[in-house]
């Protein structure tokens, strides 16, 4: 059996070979590039050490985009979690009609993100968009959804929530269905109110799923590109310019691929640190709060 087990390692070859060529090598190359002043337009490449990193970290635009990313990330994940959890509980309660609702509610998530962004853009288009046209009918002066710095951020958060709440809902709903119902029944028989059952029985049991879905969403928001690119393109000005959009501008518009790579590496480090902190604090809050 031992040799049979060893033979299994050969099965990894095609996949790991592929990953090495199309994933690890490019990533290594990007890290390598991040130490060069490299303008792709002229093809001139000079080694500059950490200069790209220092440049970026002392630059107002980077910190601006970092803040924008954090606001959008936490704003949208908060909305998605609250709404998604409420929907999951509602589905759980409805069980017989839950299926049709879950399919309909899931639609925004499976639509091509670019197409979803266009749908929302048409909703929010000034004057003729559905939202504005409706508000104007009642003589309410609508805000400039995508044109004012504050409303553009709100619109991006809501757009992200529209696309990703279904995912959060589905993950939590699946986790709810996996719960041991005797626990919930026992709590009800003991006379616990719905709120107490939710807080002391359901939520603690769902912690792994909650950590999972929040982590996934946070790391995706940090790299998410399609929605903002189509909806605002980072504008007005740089009001909705996230790190990802800024990296795109640097790398593919200004062709400063060295600096853009450095920004990519910084993003990776930020996301990794963020996830570690969140996992640790959520784990602690759950374990500490329960005892």
């Amino acid at each position: 059996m031992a040799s049979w087990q060893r033979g299994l390692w050969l099965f990894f070859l095609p996949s790991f070979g592929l990953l090495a060529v199309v994933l690890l090598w490019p990533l290594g190359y990007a890290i390598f590039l991040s130490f060069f002043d490299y303008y792709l337009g002229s093809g001139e490449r000079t080694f500059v050490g950490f200069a790209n990193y220092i440049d970026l970290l002392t630059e107002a635009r980077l910190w601006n985009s970092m803040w924008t990313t954090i606001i959008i990330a936490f704003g949208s994940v908060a909305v998605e979690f609250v709404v998604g959890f409420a929907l999951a509980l509602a589905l759980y309660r409805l069980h017989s009609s839950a299926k049709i609702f879950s399919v309909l509610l899931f639609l925004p998530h499976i639509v091509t993100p670019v197409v979803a962004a266009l749908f929302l853009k048409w909703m929010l288009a000034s004057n003729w968009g559905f939202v504005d046209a409706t508000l104007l009918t009642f003589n309410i002066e609508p805000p400039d959804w995508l044109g004012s710095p504050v409303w553009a951020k709100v619109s991006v958060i809501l757009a992200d929530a529209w696309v990703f709440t279904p995912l959060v809902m589905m993950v939590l709903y699946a986790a709810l269905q996996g719960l041991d119902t005797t626990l919930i029944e026992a709590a009800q028989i003991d006379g616990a109110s719905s709120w107490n059952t939710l807080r002391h029985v359901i939520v603690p049991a769902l912690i792994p799923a909650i950590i999972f879905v929040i982590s996934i969403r946070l790391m995706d928001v940090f790299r998410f590109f399609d929605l903002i690119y189509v909806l605002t393109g980072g504008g007005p000005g740089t009001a909705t310019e996230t790190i990802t959009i800024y990296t795109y501008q640097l790398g593919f518009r200004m062709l400063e691929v060295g600096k853009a790579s450095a920004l990519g590496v910084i993003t990776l480090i930020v996301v990794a640190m963020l996830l570690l902190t969140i996992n640790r604090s959520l784990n602690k809050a759950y374990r500490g709060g329960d005892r």
Partner: protein
Amino acid sequence: MSAQSHLGRQRTTWLIFIGMCVFTFINLTPLIWAVLTSLKDPRDAFTIPPTIIFEPTLKYHIQVWTENDFVFYLMNSLIISAGTVLISVPAGSLAAYALSRIPRRSSGPILTALFTIRMFPHMLLAIPFFVMGTFLNMIDTYPLLILALVAINQPFTIWLMHGFFLEIPRDLDEAAAIDGCSNWQAFRIVILPLARPGMTVAALFSLLLSYNEFLFALVLTGTDTKTLPVAIASFGGEDISSWSLSAAGAIGIMLPIVVVMLLLQRHLVRGLTAGAVKG
């Protein structure tokens, strides 16, 4: 439970039901609005209040697929998605099978590593692909985009297939091994037929992922290989004068996905949560 509290529960359930109906409807307005727009003549599209009742026309749906290059973009999308699936799913399935059969202490770290790869910003991958593509003169070719999509697809495929293989009892391989089958024979003759439904699901998910992908398609394609999402983004994002036409295009892009999703319905949660429920 007393009769009264039972009635109370019933009433709450009804309230939740009505609330869900309202929410679902509001949530779907952008979609409904896009469908309506795609069936409208411009004189109905630009009105205050918004026109709900009008004479629908399929003119724009026909026009977008006949007079523009959308059929060409669709072909590009299909070639690239199919290429990605054909490379990603077989390779990923082999790895996932091995992963489900080796001891947990070896498979655990590999699964964690695959999960970590998910965290990498796609931008960090797009830049080197773009630079290398420029060097090798491969920008605007199918293979470059396919390879990039395989890179982001592979961890997901392995993860998903791993779950499916875990459900196939190990006794089957062990019996095959005792009968003298090599690893490959056991996999091909015993396991593969049982794993076929799982592979179909993985293939459909990978297909969706590649069909929907935007960033790599945006930076690695050009006039010859442009995919549907890139085309519709530049077409519908700019001005709203050709509103009905872009809406028709967007709806057209969406339809095949809805069909695939209905096929996948039973596996949807699993595809998205591979890991959430199973840890």
